[in-house]
């Protein structure tokens, strides 16, 4: 792994720089640190940074730029007849990369010499078989242009690697030497080191922005791709969801929306009353001992991973509901055909959301000033009258915010619906039928061996985009309400 070694090499150079820079500063001050502007370590750190930053910067830029350059160089070798659009070009390119990797492996294992790898022609050699012999399985025979492109790819990336190594080391050494020579006792090394540290801090903080940017770009670009292949109108207003990888899919989002909202609705119908009453009880009635036990226990529900709830829905709640509402069930009604249903997923998701609603509401109820309670109790109101007529109305905006946050959780929840809700996209009012949601379909469209350029896979990005926009809007709105409410009592 040459890149790793290069990394280590630059790092080592930096550490040597640290020691040398420190020594030089001390020497300049004749060993008397009182004469230095900064503490000796700062002089060392100064050289360290001056070595690492140029080195790593060149490395990162090169690593990002090289694949793009190679891609454009290699693409020119592939005849236009081999691909019809960007999607199949990607497929060809991934073949090229695979063959190139295969050649690398073959060379590394000694099955081929460098020259052979560079010069073999698929016209004369069965490349597939030879690569297969070293454990690189190829899906089909290697076309001549693919092999050529792969060889070009290898040469370019090997050459690029050497060039990069040289440049990176050059930049690092240059930074090392310059900063080392500049080290003297007058130098304000602490200031420059702190500037670098501050820049690092800002860099770290920007990762949040980059992540959002990454999410938006990856969703957006693929969604645009999707809408090129499938009309946006049919996606947003279509009433049928029936993807088929053979083509002719109908990809209407409405049945998925219906399932999502139906399940979320049931979940909230379970979680909101229970969570709210629990919060009221804990904050207004419970003694400190009950509170100290019940509150953390309820919050355990929030710490359990969703896969556990998913399994609980699939294997416990589903069969239980069938025993109650299914054919020959305890209630004598034949409403439920199978364990996976809107009700199953909704109930379990509701359980998951109870602590979410209750702890948010608890915070909000506790934020209502004690003076309100005193005022009401002083007039002779009972506690429940105080809660119902003073505290809850006062806390209402905050509670609405909490419910919206819970709703956004429910809409974005994946594992419970993947395991508990079923896979059929259906527009039905019966809560005991299996339905599916946006998140469950994202999972099913992107797992498996779908080709990422087909509308059936790309639709997942459009679904993700829709999900992202909805949950984001809900969150922003909810946070706005909650913040506004908090300000009222601050």
């Amino acid at each position, binding site marked *: 792994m040459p890149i790793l070694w290069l990394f280590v090499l630059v790092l080592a150079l930096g550490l040597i720089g640290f020691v040398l820079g420190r020594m030089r500063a001390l020497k300049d001050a004749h060993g008397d640190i009182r004469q230095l502007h900064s503490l000796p370590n700062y002089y060392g750190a100064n050289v360290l940074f001056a070595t690492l930053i140029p080195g790593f910067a060149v490395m990162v830029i090169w690593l990002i730029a090289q694949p793009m350059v190679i891609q454009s160089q290699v693409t020119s070798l592939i005849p236009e007849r081999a691909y019809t659009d960007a999607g199949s070009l990607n497929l060809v390119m991934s073949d090229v990369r695979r063959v190139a990797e295969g050649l690398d492996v073959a060379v590394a294992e000694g099955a081929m010499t460098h020259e052979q790898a560079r010069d073999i022609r698929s016209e004369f050699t069965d490349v597939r078989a030879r690569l297969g012999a070293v454990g690189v399985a190829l899906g089909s025979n290697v076309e001549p242009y693919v092999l050529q492109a792969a060889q070009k790819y290898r040469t370019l990336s090997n050459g690029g690697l050497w060039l990069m190594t040289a440049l990176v080391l050059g930049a690092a050494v240059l930074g090392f030497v310059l900063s080392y020579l500049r080290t003297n006792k007058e130098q304000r090394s602490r200031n420059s080191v702190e500037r670098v540290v501050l820049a690092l801090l800002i860099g770290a903080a920007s990762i949040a922005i980059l992540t959002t940017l990454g999410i938006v770009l990856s969703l957006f670009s693929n969604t645009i791709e999707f809408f090129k292949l499938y009309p946006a109108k049919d996606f947003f207003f279509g009433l049928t969801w029936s993807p088929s990888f053979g083509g002719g899919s109908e990809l209407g989002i409405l049945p998925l929306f219906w399932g999502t909202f139906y399940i979320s609705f049931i979940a909230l119908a379970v979680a909101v009353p229970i969570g709210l009453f629990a919060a009221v009880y804990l904050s207004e009635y419970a003694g400190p001992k009950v509170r100290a036990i019940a509150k953390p226990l309820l919050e355990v529900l929030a710490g359990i991973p969703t896969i556990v709830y998913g399994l609980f829905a699939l294997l416990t709640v589903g069969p239980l509901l069938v025993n109650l509402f299914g054919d020959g069930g305890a209630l004598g009604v034949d409403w439920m055909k199978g364990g996976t249903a809107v009700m199953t997923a909704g109930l379990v998701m509701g359980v998951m959301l109870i602590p979410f609603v209750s702890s948010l509401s608890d915070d909000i109820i506790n934020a209502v*000033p004690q003076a309100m309670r005193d005022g009401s109790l002083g007039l002779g109101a009972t506690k429940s009258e105080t809660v119902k007529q003073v505290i809850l109305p006062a806390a209402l905006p905050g509670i609405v915010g909490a419910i919206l946050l819970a709703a956004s959780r429910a809409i974005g929840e994946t594992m419970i619906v993947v395991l508990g809700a079923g896979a059929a996209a259906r527009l039905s009012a019966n809560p005991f039928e299996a339905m599916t949601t946006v998140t469950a379909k994202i999972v099913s469209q992107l797992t498996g061996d779908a080709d990422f350029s087909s509308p059936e896979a790309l639709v997942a990005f459009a679904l993700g985009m829709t999900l992202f926009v909805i949950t984001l809007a809900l969150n922003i709105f909810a946070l706005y309400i909650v913040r506004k409410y908090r300000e009222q009592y601050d």
Partner: protein
Amino acid sequence: MNDMRIVKRDVDMNDTKISAKGVQVFYGDTHAIKDVDVEIKDKTVTAFIGPSGCGKSTFLRCLNRMNDTIDVCRVEGKILLDQEDIYDKRVDPVQLRAKVGMVFQKPNPFPKSIYDNVAYGPRIHGLAGSKADLDVIVEKSLRRAAIWDEVKDRLQAPGTGLSGGQQQRLCIARAVATEPEVLLMDEPCSALDPIATLQVEELIDELRENFSVVIVTHSMQQAARVSQKTAFFHLGNLVEYGDTQQIFTNPKDERTESYITGRIG
């Protein structure tokens, strides 16, 4: 301060409304009130004064059992309202508090309309048979609290939008709307500016025609201005209780004298 700004009126001051006998209050291990005996007269303004932390507010909150809401608080001794022990287990604090209303240090209108604030008590206690009855009660209470003219055109506006003095008078209106017999006021003017304070003080003097008023204050001038009886608390003890005039001009206990002349407090 001109102590004579409030005109003294003659009111019947002979009936005992509340009588406390040997009251002890504990907050956990802290002995907050030590053996207090006091007789509070009807149709009188009684002021509780004393340095902060002396227990005067605690004692006030015993009178309508607001201390019940604090878990660690324990009350011993007897407090009789019209000869009935309010700590008797047959007594429902809810009913008690309808008879003994309370106004707090900081104005605390509910985040509801002015009308709903005042109507809150009558509604929960079922004092109004109809909407018209309720309108009458609300108007009467707002008039008694001397705030009717200021708010009669905006009864549906939120109570939190009023100024501090108006809010406090609204809270007084809210308290008198349940027709209490005793009105407890816990430093009702401490969060108000001087003008608003004056308005509330005038109001207190008028309220004594109908109610027995107990007011906790840390301002001796205020006690002198509005009250007929004064009780001086110090370190949880009731040091001296008597006519306001006498307490301020001729205190019997030297601790009272020290406090009044500003040496302790």
